[in-house]
Each structure stands twice: as C-alpha cells, then as structure tokens.
C-alpha cells in the first residue's frame, strides 16, 4: 500500500520483467520483453495498435498467463507457482488474489459492472477487500468519484453514463483501492482535453504519493507530460525505453519510432 | 338416428380399445396383443362379420376416447357396478372380478384371506376390488392397513420389495401373477367378498344399444358352444362360472 514505509531506496525496481513472451495460439503477441519499472515511477507504454501494449499490461497482473520469462513485483514472482516445472503451474486463485490486490488496473474497455451504480462499482472492493463498512466504503467511493467530477452521477448505472463518465468511474474504482502499482490501459481515450488535464493531475498526485504507474496511451502529449520514461512497443517487441525528452524532444534514433511520431507532430500543431 | 352397429358393419371393422396391461385379460406377449379379451373378441367379431382392430390406451383416456368417438368399443374388463351403469352400457359378464389375495411366495404367516388382519395390504385405487377389500378388512377383528396404488404392478413390486404383505385384486389377475412369477408370488385361496364380474363397455346412449345386444347374443352363443370355456381354460386353467344374465348390482 502506498502509505507503507519505504524501506528501499526510491529508484529501485518494483516491477521487473524478464524475457517475457506471450503467444495467442501461433501468434506471437509479446517477444522477449525485459523491462524494469522503478518505484514511484510513471512509465508510459506507446506503440501502434496491436503492438501488444494491452497484452503486456495484462501480463503484469497475470490476466494473461505469459508463456515465457518472468514478472516480479517487489521480488515476488507474479502468477506462477514455480517456473522450473514444465508446464508451469499457476498459483491458486487465493494467492493470485493476494498479489492482485496491490496492482490496480483500469481497462481499455472499462469493464464496469453493469448491474451496480457508479457508486457501488467503486465501493464494492472497498467493502469486501478493504473491509470497510458499507457507510465508510460509500463515503470513500464518493470521494474518489468527486476527484473525477462524477459526484452527481454516482447513482447512475453504467448504461446511463456517457463514454467519458464510464471511463472516469473505472479510474475511480481503481484508485480508491490505493494499490502499490497502477496499470492504466488508455485511461483517457474517451476523455475530453479538460478532463485529460484533470486525470493527469490526479495521476500526478498519485505519483507524488509514491504510486508506481504503468500507463498505456496514444496521447503523446499526455506521455510527454506525465511520464518519467516512455517505452515504445512494436509488433510485440520493446523497441526503446527512454525519458520523454529523448523520445519527443529530439529526432528519435530508431526509424520505427521516428515514423510513428511523424504523423502525430504534423497533425497536432493547431 | 345413428346406429353404431350398422356403422360398424358398413365399415367392416370394429375398433376396440383396451389397456394391454391387465393379464391375463389383456397383455403384450412378444410384442403381440393377446389374452382372454382378445380371444373372446376375435370370436365375437367373427360372429358380427367384421374385422377387429385393437388399440392400446391408458385407462385415463379410454373413456374420454370412447365418448369422443375415437373408437367403437371398450374391451378392457370393467367391474360391473351400479354407479358405472349410470353412465355406460355394459355387456354380459366376461370374467370373474371377485377379489382375491396374493402373498409373497413362502410367506407362512398368511394361509387364508383372514390372515391379513393387522397386516399391510395393497390394492389398485378406485377399483371395485378396493371397495370389497375394505369391507372385508373392516369385518376382521383388527382391520388390515390398506395401501392404494395407481397400478397393480406397483403394488406387486412393493410386495416384492417387502413393504406390504399382500396384494388384493380380481381373482384372474392374482392367479396369473402367481403363475408367472412362482418363486415370488403365491395365490391365497379362496377369493372373498361379494361375487363381482367384469363386463365390457360401450357408450351409454342409444347408439350402442344394438351393438351391446349383438355382442351379448354372441357371448351367449359362446357359452353354449363351449368356446368361452375353452378360452378361459386356456388362460386360467379353470372355468369361472359366468352368469348368462346381467348380475344384480345395487
């Protein structure tokens, strides 16, 4: 949890990814990814559609069972019971649950629970995981919703919310849990510029509180502003992982990255 | 005014329904319908000069079917009672419906009907035999406990399973069961209660008057020429003394 005493120094790795690979049948979605995420760091993942960004994120909390390599969170192997065996055996669902409690996630498709109001979507885990009373949970949920400017839509079911409102509920749901690490999959795709700004400031606050974040995004401006480092994925491979100044500030070395950023630059000079 | 008999003769066919599930009167043997009713009615159809056609129906739908005109006649043995005569026309008796008892083979505690006193006895619900059994049981010092089954097979199965000590039903039925599963069932002689008889049934209206008369005439003829006796001996090993007039039912 974020308010635990920090016994390790601030720039050591909280997530280590080693030679990660993942197949969907024959399709190689991730190949040999090696990557560290440091404590309190904001790492942005960018890359073309279908390059494996979501898949990488999903491997980090074992929603996808990766086929090769290892993912460690605070030194603890994520998902597999033990990888010396072949085939690997996943942890029990209870052990997985323990691990995942500390890893928050906002999905690309939100995945709100349609039968619960916005408020209940946020309050649910506070009650059953954080063991708050119903009242406390609702209050806390309300605070989280207020952060994303949704206090007046708290009672709406997801079906009666606009796209951006749904996305904000999903963000509120994840941050209310105060995990150690947050994974965001395009958290601002449905948001207008103003709200992107708001979410950005929420995330900056989180970062200041020591939260580690991995953010998939297509908004280069967002990446440039919020990230400590930016990783570029292409066809399942990690092409580069550098501070944003290097990625955006000057002409990137890698041809693929260069052409990727090209269109963006052209268009965004309004 | 319609007349069933002439219709049948015109068609050259009589359709008779029964429940092929009432040995020895009606049963399926190797997939074929046989039994006392079949043998008797084959003869009667011959006398009427028509071809018989038999259909199998559960008891539930035999009488509704008769009334809806889906067939002409019922050759399921029906115990002749006053109440039933109000609604349907009966033929002369075609079988003995007096109630008799079967026990589990080798059960030495029962040797005569009176021995059911205080024991559990099964019978088929809603039958005339049930009424007879009830009356008989009440005449005993300690009445028997009577359990009603929808079907006599189930009563027999329950006796085999050991839940009840005896099964009461019409004499021919119990006798036949004992012959079929000698190691399992045994007939307790003699039959008891009032003498009762089975008849066949047609609709209660005037249409079937002539048909009933014709069948009765044919039955009487079979009494005389010994065909009736032969058929009964074939199935029962003995000849029940069947009256040649309508029995008196109150």
């Amino acid at each position: 949890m974020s308010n635990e005493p920090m016994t390790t120094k601030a720039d050591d790795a909280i997530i280590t990814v080693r030679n990660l690979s993942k197949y969907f049948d024959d399709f190689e979605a991730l190949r040999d990814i090696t990557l560290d995420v440091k404590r309190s760091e904001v790492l942005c993942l960018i890359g073309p559609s279908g390059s494996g960004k979501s898949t990488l994120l999903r491997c980090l909390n074992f929603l996808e069972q990766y086929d090769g390599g290892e993912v460690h969170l605070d030194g603890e192997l994520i998902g597999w019971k033990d990888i010396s065996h072949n085939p690997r055996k996943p942890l029990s669902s209870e052990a997985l649950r323990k691990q995942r409690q500390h890893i928050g996630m906002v999905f690309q498709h939100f995945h709100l629970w349609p039968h619960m109001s916005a408020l209940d979507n946020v309050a649910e885990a506070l009650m059953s995981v954080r063991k708050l009373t119903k009242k406390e949970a609702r209050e806390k949920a309300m605070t989280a919703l207020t952060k994303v400017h949704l206090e007046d839509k708290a009672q709406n079911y997801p079906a009666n919310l606009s796209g951006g409102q749904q996305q904000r509920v999903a963000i509120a749901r994840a941050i209310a849990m105060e995990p150690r690490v947050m994974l965001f999959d395009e958290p601002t795709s449905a948001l207008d510029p103003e709200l992107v700004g708001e979410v950005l400031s929420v995330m900056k606050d989180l970062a200041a509180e020591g939260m580690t974040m991995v953010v998939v995004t297509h908004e280069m401006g967002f990446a440039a502003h919020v990230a400590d480092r930016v990783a570029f994925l292409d066809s399942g491979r990690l092409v580069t992982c550098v501070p944003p100044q290097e990625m955006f500030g000057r002409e990137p070395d890698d041809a693929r990255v260069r052409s990727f950023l090209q269109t963006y630059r052209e268009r965004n000079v309004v | 005014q319609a007349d069933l008999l002439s219709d049948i003769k015109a068609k050259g066919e009589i359709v008779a329904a029964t429940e092929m599930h009432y040995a020895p009167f009606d049963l399926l043997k190797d997939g074929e319908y046989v039994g006392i009713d079949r043998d008797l009615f084959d003869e009667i159809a011959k006398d009427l000069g028509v071809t018989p056609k038999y259909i199998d129906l559960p008891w539930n739908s035999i009488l509704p079917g008769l009334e809806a005109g889906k067939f002409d006649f019922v050759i399921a043995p029906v115990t002749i009672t006053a109440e039933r005569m109000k609604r349907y026309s009966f033929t002369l008796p075609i079988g003995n419906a007096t109630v008799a008892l079967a026990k589990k083979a080798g059960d030495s505690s029962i040797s005569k009907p009176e021995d059911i006193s205080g024991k559990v006895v099964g019978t088929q619900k809603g039958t005339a035999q049930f009424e007879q059994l009830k009356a008989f049981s009440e005449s005993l010092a300690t009445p028997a406990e009577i359990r009603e089954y929808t079907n006599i097979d189930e009563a027999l199965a329950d006796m085999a399973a050991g839940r009840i000590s005896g099964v009461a039903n019409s004499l021919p039925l119990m006798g036949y069961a004992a012959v079929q599963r000698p190691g399992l069932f045994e007939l307790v002689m003699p039959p008891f209660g009032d003498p009762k008889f089975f008849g066949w049934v047609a609709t209660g209206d005037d249409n079937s008057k002539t048909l009933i008369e014709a069948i009765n005439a044919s039955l009487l003829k079979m009494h005389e020429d010994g065909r009736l006796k032969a058929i009964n001996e074939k199935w029962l090993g003995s000849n029940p003394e069947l009256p040649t007039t309508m029995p008196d039912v109150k």
Partner: protein
Amino acid sequence: MNFSFDTIWHNLPYLLAAARWTVIISVCGMAISLVWGTVLCATRLSANPFWRSAATLYISFFRGVPLLVQLLLFYYALPYVGLDLPAVEAAILATGMCSAAYTAEILRGALQSIPRGQTEAAYALGIPSFSLWRRILVPQAIRIGMPSLVNELILLVKVSSLASVVGISELTRIAQNITGETYRPLEIYITAAVIYFAINWILSISGRLIEKKLQIG
C-alpha cells in the same frame, strides 16, 4: 432379487421398436418447438401490444395446463370443432406447441443478456429485423441458452411418453405393458431408461458441440 437378463434380452427388440415412436414424436416435436418457439419469442418481444399479449397468453396457457390435458384436448376435443387429427400428428403437435412456450422463454431470457448496443449497431446499418434475428440475435441467444435448450429438448423426449394417452405405443407405454406380463418391472424399466439415456445423450452431446462451436474468443 434375481435380476433376469433373459427378460431384458427377450424384450429388447420390442422396446427398441417402441423407441422408434419416441424418436419420431420427439424429433418432430423439437423442430416445432424450436421454430415456433423462436417466432413466439419474437412475438412476445414485439412492439405491438396486441401480439405481445397474445404471445404472453399462449405461453401462460401452454405452460399452465398439464401436457396430458393438452394432448387429450388436441386428440379428443378438436374433433368437436371439426379438426380430427390422427394420433401421431396430434401428439407431435401438442408436444411441439407446448414445448415451444418453454423454448420461447429460454430464448427471451438469453436475448436479454445480449448487450443492446449490438442491436443498435444493426439498426444503424439498416439490417432488416429478420436478418437481425437470424444472424445476430438468435445465434447468440442459442449460445447463451444452449444448456437450457438441451434441458428442454430432453424433457420433450421424455414427455413424448404421454403420447400413450392417444394410443401410441411408445417406449414407456410398451415398457409398462411388458412389465404387466413379465412382472419384472426393474429389469424392463432399467432397460427403458438406458434407451432414453442413449437418445438424450446424443442430444446432449450435439448441444455441447454446438455450444463449443458458437463459443466466442
């Protein structure tokens, strides 16, 4: 108890012959049930209040009255209004029409869990309602409702035994009749159960195969 395999062996051909009727009635009944059930479900969900209540009434009647009584009505009461159906047809029609009421409800339940957006996408493309149902809604409803549909079809196979009340010598009836002659109910009934099981297992396996085939992702 001496279990008599002889009895089984001896009567097996007759039971199998009777099972033919069970199969005929239930297969035809299933066809009616599925097709008519789908139509009924669509009617029940239609915007027109008249058709909607007609379908609701139909379902209420056919689920409410015991099938036995429906069969008796089809066979014995319809002649009074001038429709004299032969026994097999009456049995097929009654079981099929009754089962359709249940099928319609199963499909309706499944349809409700198809996200509305999918229907809207079809609307937006101008897809005709027939195609919408045939290509988008029904396949998904079948996937979601398959286990319940198989339940219903298996029940249909079993209730086909009621066809005996209109004089059809189907499996259960013949089993009972043979019992009446052999006085060996356990042997005969177990055999009949095995035959029913075989028929239903085919259904169930097909159901699972279809389910797998329609599985997404």
